[in-house]
């Protein structure tokens, strides 16, 4: 850090400073705060400032729902395709009468039990020099996919009822018979198949904060999904779908959970820091991600009041309950902003 050694006459341009000693570079930026101006990060944002999201829905032809989400220089494409899982292909699944269906049991999450949501993230699209194709999926990709997967299920975002395909068998009983045992005769509707949603998330460009961007893309694509009307054709013994747009239906999503990630940047030595020892940086870019080892991701749903769907914190020892409260407030603000964009 040049300011720490005033006797030195050696100066570099910004880019060189950034490459040579990234940690002091970021620290120098954050410490420039004065009473009039808040601290700024090298990317020009204040620590509490998020990047503006841009969302575009329905641009893919072959997907039932799709979204392109751009947050700064991070761009994600998410495409959702529906495929059909026959109930007869589910191991140990009894013919599902509406009365005895396992879905009537409390706490039964159909989508989870039958694995009907299949999210996968692909980073090996050349989106960043760190992830090039030709190798097996990296640890980051695997952990991101798993986090999306568990968040989809734990938030029970998708209604199991939307994914069922029902069949009402016709009443074939003899019309001459007396109606003394009619409750046995009227056939109950049964579930013949389920929609399985393949959620494929491709990064076009990666500049930090992959989880928030991927989740926003999944959410926006799920909102865009339009499943055709599917029915069981007893003559052909297969599931057929109807072509008309009017018959198709959208998914009913439970809430609108938004993921918000923040990093904690710490001054390494006590001497370096004047009064402040750490800064909380929201929505980090790649440069900041390489310099911080403590990260907090919260998932909040703030449609009426802010509910917390998940908190995960990794590394570091800085964040206490006070900082957590600050992050929560920031997350609530972000959630309001994003849901406004998602709902338009």
């Amino acid at each position, binding site marked *: 850090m040049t300011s720490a050694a005033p006797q030195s006459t050696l100066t570099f341009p910004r880019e060189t400073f950034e490459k040579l000693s990234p940690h002091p570079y970021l620290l120098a930026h954050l410490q420039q705060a004065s009473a009039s101006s808040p601290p700024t990060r090298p990317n020009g944002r204040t620590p509490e400032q998020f990047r503006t999201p841009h969302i575009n829905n329905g641009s893919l032809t*072959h997907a039932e729902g799709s979204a392109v989400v751009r947050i700064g220089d991070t761009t994600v494409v998410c*495409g959702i395709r529906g495929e*059909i899982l026959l109930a007869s292909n589910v191991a140990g699944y009894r013919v599902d009468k509406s009365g005895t269906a396992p879905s009537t049991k409390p706490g039964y999450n159909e989508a989870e039990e039958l694995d009907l949501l299949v999210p996968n993230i692909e980073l090996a*699209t050349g989106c960043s020099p760190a992830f090039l194709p*030709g190798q097996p999926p990296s640890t980051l990709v695997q952990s991101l996919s798993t986090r999306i997967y568990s968040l989809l299920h734990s938030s029970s975002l998708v209604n199991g009822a939307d994914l069922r395909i029902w069949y009402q068998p016709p009443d074939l009983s003899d019309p001459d018979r007396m109606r003394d045992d009619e409750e046995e005769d009227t056939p109950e509707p049964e579930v013949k198949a389920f929609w399985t949603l393949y959620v494929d998330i491709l990064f076009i460009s990666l500049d930090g904060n992959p989880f928030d961007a991927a989740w926003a893309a999944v959410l926006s694509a799920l909102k865009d999904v339009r499943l055709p009307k*599917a029915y069981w054709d007893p003559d052909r013994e297969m599931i057929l779908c*109807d072509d008309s747009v009017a018959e198709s239906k959208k998914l009913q999503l439970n809430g609108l959970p938004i993921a918000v990630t923040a990093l904690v940047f710490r001054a390494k030595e006590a001497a370096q820091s004047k009064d402040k020892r750490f800064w909380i940086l929201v929505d980090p870019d790649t440069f900041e991600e390489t310099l911080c080892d403590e990260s907090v991701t919260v998932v909040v749903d703030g449609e009426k009041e802010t509910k917390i769907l998940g908190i995960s914190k990794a590394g570091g020892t800085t964040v206490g309950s006070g900082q957590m409260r600050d992050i929560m407030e920031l997350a609530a603000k972000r959630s309001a902003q994003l849901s406004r964009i998602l709902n338009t």
Partner: protein
Amino acid sequence: MTDRRRINGPSGGTSAPIFSKYLAKTPNELLERPTRSRPNNALRKMFLKTGVTPSASGSAYLELEASKNPKSTAPGLSSPSTSGLKLTCTVHGPRPLPKSAPFSPHIILTTHVKYAPFATRKRRGYLRDSSERDLGVHLETALRGVIIGDRWPKSGVEIIITILEGEEDQWWGDGIGHGNTAAAEWGMMSVLSGCITVASAAIADAGIDCVDVVAGGVAAVVKGSAKGPSPNLVLDPVPSEHKEIIAACIVGYLPSRDEITDLWVKGDIGHGNQNEDTAQSASYEELADSAVQAALGSHRVLIAALKETADVKIGRS
């Protein structure tokens, strides 16, 4: 063998939805089939933009507009009849080869072409299949001669193309009844041509020295419609718009040197056709010449896009 590093979905296996109209014996061809509304020698509108991936040394995005059937009024869910082509390309490098690599006096070019899982009517897997590898090899051949490789000894450059939306091999109605034999992967030709053009833009964006910017072009001989029964030569064919494609040709073309870096012809024109109708039917040479014409068209777009980027870059600094 399932891929344990990814989330695989239900073990029972799923199938793509089957729409009731797929089962009709005679699909309503007049209403559903997209038709070619452009003249035979006109290309589809092309959108090309560089610099979509700031973290890469160079990148580009290419989109070809989807063809529509003017007669169909209400689009159904099952068959938004054709999709346009959507490609993104990133270039990483040139950068030093790892120490373990043997000495190379020139740059080592690696190409990866991958379809997104949602790129085609049938869902694609995450592992590269043979057609994707084939595209990668063709792309490498087309680009190798263009880059001045001697300027970067001991270095490597990676060119990665993601196909967000691919070209279809045939109109979906044609697959009914006679299985999948008729489709000879004609869509791959347009995809390769797009790959060459978009990679060329990304290489220029990365500032890698080239002898010229290479552009891809496709031409095809298609069986004539009711109006003209003889085979027609068309530029930039959309497979779903034609009932039968006899042959197709793709070139990678360098306009300023009048050189071809990659030439690939599929299908059979045959001499029999030529004897039947000498005036109308095409020879392989004519086919290749038309493909070059198509390449010249995309070259014009390429140059305009690169000029635009250059203007922005100069204006900024």
